[in-house]
């Protein structure tokens, strides 16, 4: 029956679109956690900052691509500053670093509220990506398909970086055994700096892209952080492939379970997390 196929296909595409966004935010979070052993609680705030900056620049220049860059680059620079001048001072003191990221989160959240207020803001989509297309007998937003494409491209890029470049090899080695990497003469500080900046930049870019999908409003930072944590728990810390699989599955589980059992929204989201923590705490592909 056509409706059955289209039901599942629409759940699949919608789930992957959400998954693509989760992947963008979750992968950077996972890298930082895997490599440096810290939970960056400012990650959601980085996302929201990227969204607000993209919207602000769009209002000035009326250009979608520039707006996306405006979301990514300043946040990347901010991530660099945070690592270089704050986190680095407390190297090895993981609890202190985590507390520091909470502080950064709170300061950023209040600054964003002061600058942009409490109104919901949405990044306008370029006409190419606005509207929806019909598939069999349902319709899906073009922007969702675009998000899936971005997710796939970024995912392939990250996979290539991680498995085929020498910096990627250093990162993998750093996740496994940071001391050994230091021991063979690699400047791990530079690697840390690059990864925090990169993770923040990904969050900022995710915020810019998500600004046209979820909008931007106070409180979204906390939600995004929560999703990032779920991605890491399921995918395993430090694993990009794990993050990709986790993000896609969370998107799919979220869609299918909400379509079939709408009353169990949070149960269907957190039950897998609880199961993973109980039976496989290193996640799908996390290294031990």
């Amino acid at each position, binding site marked *: 029956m056509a409706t059955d196929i289209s039901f599942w296909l629409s759940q699949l595409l919608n789930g992957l679109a959400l998954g693509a966004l989760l992947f963008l935010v979750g992968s950077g979070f996972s890298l930082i956690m895997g490599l440096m*052993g810290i939970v960056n609680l400012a990650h959601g705030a980085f996302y929201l900052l990227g969204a607000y900056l993209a919207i602000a620049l769009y209002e000035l220049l009326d250009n979608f691509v520039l707006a996306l860059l405006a979301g990514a680059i300043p946040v990347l620079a901010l991530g660099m500053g945070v690592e270089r001048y704050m986190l680095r001072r407390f190297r090895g003191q*993981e609890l202190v670093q985590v507390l520091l990221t909470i502080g950064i989160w709170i300061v950023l959240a209040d600054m964003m509220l002061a600058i942009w207020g*409490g109104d919901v803001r949405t990044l306008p989509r370029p006409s190419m990506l606005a509207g929806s297309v*019909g598939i069999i007998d349902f319709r899906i*937003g073009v922007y969702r398909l675009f998000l899936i494409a971005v997710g796939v491209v970024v995912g392939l890029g990250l996979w290539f970086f991680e498995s085929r470049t020498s910096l990627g090899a250093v990162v993998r080695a750093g996740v496994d055994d940071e001391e050994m990497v230091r021991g063979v003469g690699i400047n791990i500080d530079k690697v840390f700096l690059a990864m925090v900046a990169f993770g923040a930049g990904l969050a900022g870019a995710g915020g810019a892209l998500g600004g046209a999908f*979820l909008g931007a409003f106070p409180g979204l930072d906390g939600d995004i952080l929560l999703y990032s*944590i779920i991605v890491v728990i399921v995918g395993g810390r430090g694993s990009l492939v794990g993050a990709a699989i986790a993000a896609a599955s969370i998107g799919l589980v979220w869609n299918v379970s909400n379509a079939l059992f709408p009353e169990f*929204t949070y149960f269907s989201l957190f039950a897998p997390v609880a199961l993973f*923590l109980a039976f496989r705490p*290193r996640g799908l592909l996390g290294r031990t």
Partner: protein
Amino acid sequence: MADIARREFIKKGFYASAAVLGTPLLLQACADGEVVSTTTLPVGTTVPDTTTAAPLKVGYFTALTGPLALGGGEQKLGWDFFVEERQGQVSGRLLEVVVEDTEGNPEVALTKVRKLVQQDAVDVLIGGLSAAIGLPVFEFVNENEVPWVSPSIANDQLTQRLAGQNRFMIRTGYTASQQNHPLGEWAYDELGYRNVVTIGFDFPFGWEQVAGFQRTFEGRGGTVVNKIWTELGTPDYSPFLSGIDRDADAVFAAYSSASAVSFLQQYQEVGLRNELPLIGPFGLTYESVLRGGDFTDDHVVGIHTASRFSAVHPQVSTRDWATRFIAETGDEPADTMADAYTAGRFLEAALEKTGGDTSDAGAFADAFIGLRIDDSPLGPIEIDEDRNPVFNVYIRRTSSVEEPPVPGYELPWMNEVVETFEGVSQYWTFDKGEYLEEPAYGRDYPPVSG
């Protein structure tokens, strides 16, 4: 080795979750130590009649930060506009306003209210936003005998089944179900809907809004075939939308703020706008929602909503007020701003009635009963014996703006009034006694009959 790493991982996961869950507590702890935002407003200078009466101390509390900051900011804007127009003086008494931020957190809210009453010794409280703080603050003001003018908190029961325990909360806003009662009958009679699917927030504000609609819609003979509930902060409505029965005549969507923006966006995206018309409570299309989305006509035009207010109502009192509001703030006013301004008008009217005397708090709280304002931003409004307002309910249709309906109105859409129900009380046309005998509105009452 593996085991140590595993334990480390669990430990870090624990820190992370403790940190996430603990943040509100931490914020609260930080905020408790000091007065975050205490402002004393400038004294009006042009009023020659400087009375010797002591200033009226007002404690204003609302969510200025946190997830509800949007609504809280709008509410405060409406109140500030009132104070500014009165030049800081009401009925011969200077206003001394102490502002506190509830952060949208019920525990913080109660702490702040207690501080306003016990430390600042305010004469009257104004504000409060989310239903979650309704009951605790209600109990507090009645125990401590402090009048509370409440422009936004909508829990039905506070002025219905709990009205007997209440003397000090005066609701100048609305109950959640109040405006949806007329909409239910109107959707059946005028739009000809027979089968409706409802979708909305899965907490009391959503339940009561849906229930008000369902009660009267089914009373006419319609059927609510399915009730879908979603959590606050749902990022993606597409799975819920695919569960909507396409054979229904319409969808009643009880959303507001950021949720309304994403919902409307996605409802159009999946092509439902052309299949199933949308109706809903005021929050679905109120002005900051229209402003917040990346919308086209296709997203919003033709949605019918029920509200006590429309920024573009042609009646003189609304039009004048909206014109002044836009000139002063640059933003189109929405329901929340009008509510807070109206709360100020009621405070003023009660003071006039008692000759500016607030020394007997009980008598001052009672003075609100029966007060009527004919030229409020909402139109005529009156406080009933249960300390809840009776007002006109407007059925509004979202339409494209051709000519600015009010000077300075810049939004491309407006909530155009297509029908008026005059003098709507919280009991609608039901007999109060019989209404209160029925079970209270909730998640599963009235039940789904379809």
